[in-house]
């Protein structure tokens, strides 16, 4: 399994996110447009990612996972908070700084069918980062490096001469990973990299990512909603709900001893592949919907669905506090 290599070089995180908030302007409402609509996509999110570490970011659709990842990459304007990369603040990086940072930070996309330009050959796709950053002058120079990258991600070396449509989903995702690796980055945001893939292929791609991590000491922010995959690859896991991190803990603590009621409900929704055990299990259900991000409730975001809700939850939002060593949760009552 994984995670044995999980040694925390405690002092200097590669990526540090402090109280990150991302608010989107959604226009104006009301007859005279007097009321501004603001989508609270991400609010007061903090976490660190250490070199060689994978942080799994889990949450349902619309919980702000992808927005968090894109904010780190400088693709979404940050409203509040700070982002540090290798100790340097990159919160409001300009265009040129983002371009420079793209040598060290890359993105792996969710949909391998849409993230490769259908009119470019694989060699052009994988060599593009090298070209635009001036590492090579032309495709011919890049050919050797591209072949090496393709071999690294387990594609036949002659794949470079073909177009994306000639490949399966898993192979395309490998091309996407090769493109992300071309500039030898230190940090990769993987935005649901396996959720569009066939179940039989997922393990291959996840294992590939782990191999690459141990080979190059990469750090991942692994965004997903498949808890089994996240458990397999992550060292630590952050659970997001409606723009907040509700629990952030070491992998085994999250799965064996979850604290936050939302985490517990989420984990109880994962079926166990053993019918008698599955039948005997108690499902924790939380009826209702996540709050409207346009108008989030004051206090705890989870109050509308929480079985343990009290007046405190309605009055004030809880912050992440230490529960066990390596486990923090944001809840008043647990």
């Amino acid at each position, binding site marked *: 399994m994984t995670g044995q290599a999980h040694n925390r070089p405690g002092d200097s995180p590669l990526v540090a996110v402090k109280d990150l908030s991302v608010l989107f302007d959604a226009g104006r409402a009301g007859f005279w447009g007097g009321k501004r609509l603001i989508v609270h996509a991400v609010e007061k999110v903090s976490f660190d990612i250490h070199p060689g570490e994978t942080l799994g970011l889990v949450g349902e659709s619309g919980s702000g996972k992808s927005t968090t990842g894109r904010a780190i990459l400088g693709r979404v304007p940050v409203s509040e908070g700070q982002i540090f990369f290798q100790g340097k603040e990159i919160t409001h990086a300009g265009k040129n700084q983002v371009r420079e940072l793209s040598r060290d930070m890359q993105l792996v996309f969710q949909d391998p069918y849409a993230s490769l330009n259908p*009119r470019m050959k694989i060699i052009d796709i994988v060599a*593009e980062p090298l070209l635009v*950053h001036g590492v090579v002058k032309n495709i011919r120079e890049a050919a050797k490096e591209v*072949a090496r990258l393709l071999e690294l991600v387990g594609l036949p*070396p*002659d794949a*470079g001469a073909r177009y994306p449509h000639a490949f399966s989903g898993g192979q395309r995702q490998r091309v996407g990973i090769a493109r992300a690796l071309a500039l030898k980055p230190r940090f990769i945001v993987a935005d649901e990299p396996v959720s569009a893939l066939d179940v039989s292929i997922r393990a291959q791609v996840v294992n590939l990512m782990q191999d690459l991590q141990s080979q190059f000491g990469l750090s991942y922010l692994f965004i997903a909603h498949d808890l089994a995959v996240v458990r397999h690859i992550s060292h630590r896991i952050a659970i997001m709900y409606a723009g907040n991190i509700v629990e952030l803990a070491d992998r085994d603590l999250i799965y064996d001893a979850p604290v936050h009621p939302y985490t517990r409900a989420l984990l109880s929704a994962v079926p166990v592949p053993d019918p008698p055990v599955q039948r005997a299990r108690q499902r924790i259900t939380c009826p209702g919907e996540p709050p409207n991000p346009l108008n989030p409730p004051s206090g705890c975001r989870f109050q509308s669905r929480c079985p343990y809700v009290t007046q405190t939850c309605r009055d004030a939002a809880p912050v992440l506090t230490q529960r066990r060593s390596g486990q923090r949760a944001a809840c008043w009552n647990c």
Partner: protein
Amino acid sequence: MTQPRTDTLEQALAQNRFEWWDSLRELGRELKRDKPGLIGVILITSLVLMAVFAPYISPHDPSAQDLTARLAPPVWYDKGTWNHILGTDHLGRDVLSRSIHGARVSLWVGTAVVLCAGGFGVVMGLMAGYLGGRTDAFIMRWIDTQVAFPGLLLALIILAVIGPSLTTVVVVLSLNGWMVYGRMTRSAVLSIRQSPYVEAAEVVGCRWPRILFRHILPNLTSPLLTLAILEFARIVLAEAALSFLGLGIQPPATSWGLDVAMGKNYMFMAWWLVTIPGCAIAVTVLAINLVASWLRLISDPQEREKQYARHMAGVMRKNLLAALEKEKPPEAL
């Protein structure tokens, strides 16, 4: 397209073709397989050759009048003569010669305007759609203003001030026709810029000109080609309208559009005046259509490979049938 199995890195690298003449040869081979495309290319080439060598192949001077032979019918009528194979117009000018010479102006104006207006319009549309914000607002308001202004009036003003000539006609028609490219490109860009592969290009660190011309534009080829063909036919007729008003081609020069416009008055007495240049326009547009649909096909790698597979399947079937034929014992025949 043919990739034999390569197992080592060196073979794979050797397999990557970078030279442009290789791809050109490949293109020729593929054109031979695509019959409609081949017909289109042959038609266009012969039309262009006809225009270039017009003085050498036309039987008469296109502006020579022969009032004794006014409105002579084509040769297959009783009154027709071999002297004027396709008849003469109301001034006794040879219709065949005029059609051959008219190709010069019509093809030149059509091509030049489509290239100028298309090029400018597409670049504007790309920038408006991708950069958004103020650039978008500025370009779109500019287009709105120009669309609202009557095109013919603008043409009349410019032509009246500068004076009619072939270049002015091209400029005027381009000024009049680029907006449609701009609008269409912008709307297509708006949807393509949301696609993950454009985001991937941004994350990788591409600057915007590269994203526009390397990632977005190639994926717009089919709608743009279709629009360009439609516009070509419209431009040939628009040139006719200008010439008819006396602001385009000046007699004794001629164009297909001008001939159609002037022949209109004699439509019931002499149908050939309208029909012959009209047919020439139709054949040109048809040929461009054929070429464009072939271009659309080969600009899409997936379609191109399908085409190749279809061809190979055909070849294999033929070989198989031939082999079966050979294997047949002679006594069975």
